């Protein structure tokens, strides 16, 4: 297409894009020509008005064609030119940035690796592309993967990089060539960028400096036949013994629809195995795998699909993820307003859970409380906590059938802050003194809850509904309501449980809340929201609107564990992700040796108010056992955040213990892990990403090429206007398109005359 354009219009499209149009004829000549044109037009008009055997339509058509012809002629006589800035030969530099990552060694459909293009086009000085470029520019070569560096030529490439950070590489090349006249950068890559920073951030400096990037995309757009596993998301930490329900996305191309095993393993121990039915070509399917982690400590989980026969890329069949399995005992405060069987059965359900400590404060009479499972004689001795420090010791709060008026306004506000600021979990249970029936409307806790409460119409004892409970689609995907059933049998397990009752009619969710369980019953005007949750600030809030789910324990056969499993998983979910006073994190859980990363810590005091004047230290234990203490500094832009840039110098598992103190008092500590190891990231999404490369070219003023179209690149880069340039005028009057147009107009008039018998 471009060749046809060049044939007709004399120049390639980029010349028209980069240049601007002008008329080269002197002013007097222009005026004379204009006058001649007017005279000619009048003559033609007069001629068309002549009476004869022609009809008016014929005369108009012929006059129009003659006028158009005259117009083209006048246009040519005005000497149209394209004013363009073209580089001065050998006065400018061009940077050639070449992808040096592993994915460049992947074979294409023809069996040749992607890197073969680099060798063919740039490998020797005799190659056409190098010759053309060298005639005009001084060339500088760069390699890049996760980092970039200057090289002498393509022979220095090893194609062993484990990441592709295109934006950073382009910006680094721009900076290195910022002292010389730069006509542009040529990027040769498959576009398989896997940087965590947004590309736009690195393109802005290029745009500002006016450096066009000419991208050359190598490799097939689709790798086929192949099976690829998508990214696997795991929580940062989880309580020991908790059930995880992980969604794994699997995509096949060219393998056909078949069933393959998905294996989850840790330390060579298989945790779970599921059969996955692959979808149509290119369409991802989601496999849901439940498994449990029973060993406390940093745990690396591997998800893999055995390599199938004929696969082009084997490395993209597996993913690894790291999480911290916590062996701690998490304290939950359960405040109950009256003796209820619900309390007994919840306690019994979680009693065997070594990671949950359910501290109970039950009002048995006005001003009289029963305390259970407290750590000391003084704990909760004054009733419900009155200070933030006292309440924030717990990681979650469960409110039973207790009216809002029992609490002071400060305590209610403290409960809301417990969720939003401390990041704790809040669960409100159904009951005659819960939700609207307990007067919770209009309290600070109202907006924390994930459900909309309507004022009770006819008194608190009027509404009663027997309901059967079933999971929603969101519930089926949530580990907390699986009841320990296999993935396909969860709904049936719920259906087997007896009906329960509610005295709190709730049918509406707050915006942003998610319903996990719903209830249906004859006495209900609308389906009851049985279990819902929402994020609120740093924490989460849950609502369980039934009042006697202990029936799930008493009615089914004695060996049925549904009730116990439900409450254990619900309580674990409630405390899952609840932060400590010091929360450390690392930007990437796995980096390469020598690849910089950042360690951050969010520090707050016991009331969870961010602290900016703490002394924060990271004790880094290297894989070889060396220990180094390094200080984290406060990030001024964000309250309570401290940071440290860290580059692992050896491969293996790094342990980072972050401790914070202020005025000699320990605020808290946290433990994180960082793995330094070669990455397989290059093999995921390994097809050529044409859209990304086109975007880079478009946004910087360059062009996108493939190996078959790259031959025009040297000419194109000459007219971008960047670098040391000369302004030149290129004639347009002799464009073949103009002559072709005049010829066609004359032929059209002659043809018309012939068809009408006028010639």
């Amino acid at each position, binding site marked *: 297409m471009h060749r046809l354009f060049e044939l007709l219009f004399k120049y390639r499209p980029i010349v028209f894009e980069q240049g601007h149009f002008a008329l080269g004829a002197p002013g007097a000549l222009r005026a004379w020509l204009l006058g001649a044109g007017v005279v000619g037009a009048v003559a033609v008009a007069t001629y068309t008005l002549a009476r004869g055997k022609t009809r008016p339509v014929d005369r108009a058509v012929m006059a129009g064609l003659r006028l158009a012809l005259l117009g083209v002629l006048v246009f040519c006589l005005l000497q149209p030119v394209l004013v363009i800035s073209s580089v001065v030969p050998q006065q400018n530099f061009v940077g050639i940035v070449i992808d040096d990552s592993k994915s460049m060694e992947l074979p294409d459909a023809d069996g040749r690796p992607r890197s073969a293009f680099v060798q063919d086009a740039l490998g020797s000085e005799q190659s056409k592309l190098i010759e053309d470029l060298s005639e005009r520019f001084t060339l500088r070569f760069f390699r890049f993967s996760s980092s970039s560096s200057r090289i002498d030529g393509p022979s220095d490439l090893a194609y062993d990089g484990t990441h592709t950070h295109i934006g950073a590489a382009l910006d680094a090349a721009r900076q290195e060539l910022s002292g010389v006249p730069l006509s542009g950068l040529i990027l040769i890559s498959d576009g398989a960028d896997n940087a965590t920073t947004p590309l736009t951030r690195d393109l802005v400096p290029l745009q500002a400096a006016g450096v066009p990037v000419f991208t050359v995309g190598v490799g097939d757009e689709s790798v086929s036949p192949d099976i690829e596993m998508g990214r696997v998301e795991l929580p940062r930490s989880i309580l020991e013994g908790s059930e995880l329900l992980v969604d794994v996305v699997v995509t096949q191309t060219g393998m056909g629809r078949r069933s393959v095993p998905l294996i989850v393993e840790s330390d060579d121990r298989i945790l779970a195995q599921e059969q996955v039915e692959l979808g149509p070509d290119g369409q991802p399917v989601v496999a849901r795998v439940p498994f449990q982690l029973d060993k406390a400590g940093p745990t690396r989980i591997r998800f893999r699909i055995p390599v199938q026969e004929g696969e082009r890329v084997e490395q993209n069949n597996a993913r690894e993820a790291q999480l911290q399995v916590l062996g701690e005992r998490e304290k939950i405060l359960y405040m109950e*307003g*009256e*003796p*209820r*069987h619900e*309390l*007994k*059965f919840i*306690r*019994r359900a979680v*009693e*065997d859970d070594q990671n949950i400590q359910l501290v*109970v404060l*039950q*009002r*048995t*009479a*006005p001003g*009289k409380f*029963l305390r*259970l499972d407290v750590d000391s004689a003084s704990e909760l001795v004054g009733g419900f906590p009155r200070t933030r420090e006292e309440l924030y010791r717990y990681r979650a709060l469960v409110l039973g*059938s207790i009216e809002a008026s029992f609490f002071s306004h400060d305590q209610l506000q403290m409960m809301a802050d417990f969720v939003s600021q401390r990041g704790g979990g809040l669960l409100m249970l159904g009951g*005659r003194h819960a939700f609207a029936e307990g007067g919770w409307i209009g309290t600070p806790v109202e907006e924390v809850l994930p459900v909309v409460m309507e004022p009770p119409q006819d008194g608190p*004892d009027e509404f*009663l509904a*027997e309901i059967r409970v079933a999971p929603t689609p969101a519930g089926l995907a949530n580990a907390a309501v699986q009841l320990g059933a296999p993935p396909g049998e969860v709904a049936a397990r719920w259906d087997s449980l007896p*009906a329960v*009752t509610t*005295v709190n009619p709730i049918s509406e969710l707050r915006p942003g809340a998610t319903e996990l369980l719903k209830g249906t019953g004859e*006495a209900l005007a609308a389906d009851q929201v049985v279990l819902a949750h929402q994020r609120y600030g740093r924490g989460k809030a849950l609502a369980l609107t039934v*009042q*006697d789910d*202990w*029936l799930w*324990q*008493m*009615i089914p056969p*004695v060996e049925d564990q549904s009730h116990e499993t439900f409450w254990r998983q619900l309580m674990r979910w409630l405390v899952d992700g609840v932060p400590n006073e010091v929360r450390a994190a690392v930007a990437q859980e796995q980096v390469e040796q020598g690849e910089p990363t950042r360690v951050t810590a969010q520090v707050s005091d016991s009331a969870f108010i961010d602290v900016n004047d703490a002394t924060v230290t990271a004790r880094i234990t290297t894989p070889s056992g060396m220990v180094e203490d390094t200080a984290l500094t406060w990030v001024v832009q964000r309250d309570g955040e401290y940071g440290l840039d860290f580059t692992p110098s050896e491969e293996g598992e790094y342990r980072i213990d972050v401790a914070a103190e202020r005025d000699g008092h320990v605020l808290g500590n946290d433990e994180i892990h960082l793995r330094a190891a070669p990455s397989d990231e290059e093999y995921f999404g390994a097809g050529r990403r044409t859209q990304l490369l086109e975007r880079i070219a478009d946004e910087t003023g360059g062009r996108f090429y493939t190996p078959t179209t790259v031959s025009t690149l040297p000419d194109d880069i000459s007219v971008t206007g960047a670098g040391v340039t000369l302004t030149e005028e290129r004639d347009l009057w002799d464009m073949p398109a103009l002559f072709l147009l005049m010829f066609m107009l004359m032929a059209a008039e002659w043809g018309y005359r012939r068809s009408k018998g006028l010639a």
Partner: protein
Amino acid sequence: MRTLLRASSILAFFAVSSLLAATAACRERPADGAVRGSVAEPSPSYRGLMAQQVPRRFRRSADFEPAPPAAETREGLVEPEGTHAFYWTRAEYTDNGRGWGRYGGRERRGSWTTDYPKADYQFLVGLKRLLRIDAYDGINPVSLADPDLRRYPMIYAVEVGHMDLTREEIHGLRDYLNAGGFLICDDFWGTREWDQFERNIRAVLPGRPIVELPLDHPLFSTYYQIDSIIQVPNEGNARAITLGYPGAHTYERDGYVPHVRGILDDHGRLMVVINWNTDLGDAWEWAEDPLYPLVYSTYAWKLAVNMIVYGMSH
């Protein structure tokens, strides 16, 4: 011929008599009640909303209908229908025919009915004054063989020294206790009744030992602090003590020393509380009697409240 006619008339008389007797028996048979010793069907009322909402009516037999609560003890009270957090539930069980068992002084109706229903009504009045609890005000007897038993996680059984449980009752009570139910036993005295009770409860929970509950057990401090076990006498003995009759005593038969014993589950939680050689039920039933010493009623309520708070939280 005359002999033949006489024989025919005698036969006809027996046939008609038998027919009438059978008709009468059918008429007397409870319409919806359980036959002793068999598995009780769920009450028809439960087919509606739920058993808790409208507790089952007393349905031991057609001619044994207790007066409704309003007429009996709570005149004028209109009990709202609705689910309550707590139902004081009396266990119906099969006995060996030697116990007291009565109702309102009328004919004997089984050991489980001892003190029934007055003790239950009076107990609930006291309970609701002492404890902030959403308790149903009415009576609620349930057979140990009834599947509905599992809807009431706490039951009270009286005169258990005369228990003679059927196979269905044994299985029902075993599943109930293993699922998380809580049984309070009361009012049986002496070695002979202990042996009878022990035989039955071991059939229900084989292999689980019966242990003496020490005074530092949470049961004695969950709500009230109880520092000693008191022998609560029956109504007659209590009056005799008050009136100063010579030889008046609190014990019955050879049950001289009161005991609070228990059966624990695998986690050390009480499944069964056994009040032996004591009669808490009479203390509730006769609490209003000026001749019944207050000390016994007070103790009976204290221990009962502790048992309820413990049983609803452990």
